[in-house]
């Protein structure tokens, strides 16, 4: 590696040349000991977990944020500067998610290995196709990201794509153990594909379910599972929900009903609980990233738990509707289905196919988005 080669050059020349060269060599060697673990700085827990999967014992991962922190708004804290200073590989979401703090961290840490364009600087969003790329950049539309919606980790297929890029980078920054990274990646990719098939089978019944979200954090999950976002509690991305906007959503739900109100663990619970209570919908906190719920301890359990929570909420909602709100349930289903259905509670069993009845597109919900989702 470059640094080590320079370090050896300095070490070789040090006795005869100035003390400065020796000190510089020592610094370079301290900064990158040959057999030590590769220090990885991950901006978000999902990338920290991925680095741990692919790097195993060969890496030491530091994760800058936790699942209860909004990654848009993180302080460039002194401790983070110290960690970026030490890192050999940085993996962050990109797509301007961390624009308010990451560029500053990298600059203040004076770590050239993590400069933009270096092997040590990896943005996950560069490895996937982002959605919602704005055609027009205007802050009147809220906190829009020119690179598209950055919350890519809610689709496990994106995780697989980022894993490919990360494995390559690990092998680049630590070529001595490239074979180990390749082997771990192959194993991970195989297990991930198996899990993906399992999840997609489990989630079949979620296709077409209309949801209300707090922030547009779930577009990738929606695309993957075929959920339909009917409203967002934030009037504009990044603008906190206002009472007027919540009231408008509530009245809008009369004509465009939803089944769930979804939020991340770091978002203010009050708006979604307010709406959930008045609209008679379950408010669901999805883990969003590793550590976002007690069960979401790694990338696999993150999606296990996400699906369990979605399916559980749909079952509970349907049971409650069947048991105590059969009339409103009937109305809801008339809107959901083209024909008046028998309003019976959906089976409560843990089986994957929760919403037993197939959800059919209706004229009322027949938006392009829904048709796409259900297609």
């Amino acid at each position, binding site marked *: 590696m470059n640094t080590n080669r320079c370090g050896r050059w300095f070490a070789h020349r040090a006795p005869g040349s100035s003390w400065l060269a020796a000190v510089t060599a020592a610094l370079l060697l301290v900064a990158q000991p040959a057999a030590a673990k590769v220090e990885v700085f991950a901006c978000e827990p999902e990338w920290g977990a991925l680095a741990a999967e692919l790097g195993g014992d060969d890496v030491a991962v530091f994760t800058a944020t936790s699942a209860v922190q909004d990654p848009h708004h993180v302080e460039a804290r*002194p401790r983070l500067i*110290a960690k970026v200073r030490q890192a050999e590989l940085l993996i962050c979401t990109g797509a301007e998610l961390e624009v308010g703090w990451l560029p500053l961290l990298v600059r203040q840490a004076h770590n050239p290995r993590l400069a933009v364009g270096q092997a040590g600087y990896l943005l996950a969003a560069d490895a996937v196709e982002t959605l919602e790329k704005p055609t027009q950049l205007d802050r009147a539309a809220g906190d829009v990201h020119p690179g598209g919606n950055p919350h890519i980790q809610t689709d496990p297929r994106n995780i697989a794509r980022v894993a490919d890029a990360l494995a390559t980078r690990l092998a680049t920054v630590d070529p001595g153990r490239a074979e180990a990274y390749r082997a771990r990646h192959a194993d991970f990719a195989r297990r991930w594909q198996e899990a993906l098939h399992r999840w997609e089978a489990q989630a079949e019944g979620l296709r077409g379910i209309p949801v209300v979200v707090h922030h547009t954090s779930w577009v990738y999950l929606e695309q993957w599972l075929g959920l339909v976002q009917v409203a967002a509690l934030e009037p504009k991305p990044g603008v906190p929900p206002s009472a007027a906007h919540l009231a408008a959503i509530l009245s809008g739900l009369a004509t465009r009903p939803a089944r769930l109100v979804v939020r991340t663990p770091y978002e203010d619970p009050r708006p979604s609980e307010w709406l959930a209570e008045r609209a008679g919908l379950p408010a669901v906190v999805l883990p969003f990233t590793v550590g976002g719920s007690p069960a979401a301890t790694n990338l696999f359990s993150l999606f296990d738990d996400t699906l369990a929570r979605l399916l559980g909420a749909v079952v509970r909602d349907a049971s409650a509707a069947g048991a105590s709100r059969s009339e409103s349930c009937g109305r809801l289903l008339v809107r959901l289905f083209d024909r008046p259905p028998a309003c019976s509670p959906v089976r409560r069993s843990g089986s994957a196919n929760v919403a037993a009845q197939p959800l059919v597109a209706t004229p009322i919900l027949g938006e392009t988005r829904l048709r796409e989702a259900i297609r």
Partner: protein
Amino acid sequence: MRHALLACALTLTAPLVAEAGGVPAANGFNPALSAILMGNDWGYTRSSTTYALPGFQLGGESGLAAEGLSLAESELTLSANVDPTFYGQLTLAVATADEGSEVEIEEAYGETLALPGGLGVRFGRFFSALGYLNEVHAHAWDFADAPLAYRAFLGQQLFDDGVQVRWVVPADGFVEVGGELLRGRAFPGGSDGSTPGTGDLFLHLGGDVGVSQSWRLGLAHLRANVEARESTVGPPSLFAGDSNLSVVDLVWKWAPHGDPSLRNLLFQAAYFRRAEDGTVAVNPVTGAYDGTQQGGYLQAVYQFWPRLRAGLRYDHLRADDPDGDPAVLTAAGLDPGGHDPARVTVMTDFSPSEFSRLRLQYAADRSRPEPDHSWVVQYILSLGAHGAHAF
């Protein structure tokens, strides 16, 4: 040896070919361009033009803002990575002057990106790293004006031409040491620039306490070889001599689970101590001056509801009775006359988004022996590139 170093530096910085498809949209803001629009309506019960801090020679921009509706500084910032080796930033401040407006270069600096081992060198004009708030642009302050200590000791904010070196120590916690050599143009310096007039050293320590708290402690010392320093506020006077300033400051932030978006608390404290020894000239006489001054501030700002914050600040200054010619000292306003300037400020602000802020502030101001009450309504709008703010 120099060639070998250069070769190493070049290989270290050689950019890699991107592996995945790039994001051209990210270059849409290259160079990042942002503008700050600020305006306010200040009111005072005493005349703002006779402002003084007894015992202190005031320099720089340490006067009160003009009374009534007015534009505050409008700021324009351009920044970008120049190449893999340098980052550059230009900040222009446009302020209303007596006739028309004047453009001031607040910052125009280059900074190294590729030095190994946590080293960074900044050169050009920049805000000194002496004191936490000194590096913070006015639009990012938590109050509409600077603490009295910044007015008294740094002419509101110290920015000057020079070189700054920083080194982030390789450690688990944050340890940064650095130093600056400055031309000495700016208060508290006063040099013609033939030799560097001002130099300072600083040490920053920082870390987290649990997941909800983080802190930074700063220690700094500045020496200025003052050839001639004119007062810009208060009685006209000219100081020449040695100036030694020490600063200790602490920033402590609390946010539940480290997420500041709903609720957070910011706490700042600083203590300044300056010893100056030299001569003071007040036309037509000159006299000796040997004095010690100290002061500081404490402030807390609490975001109690999304987008809404309230803050409280206390300022205090004290100038010891200086040694020298009493008549000259009195004429120069350097005799404190037994008065310690102090001020209590309360403010509340509302931020419709992270790009806009409206603020209301009141202060019971005992800068002068006679109490003054001031209030201000302020707006701060930021346009353009999403600026990142340091801790």
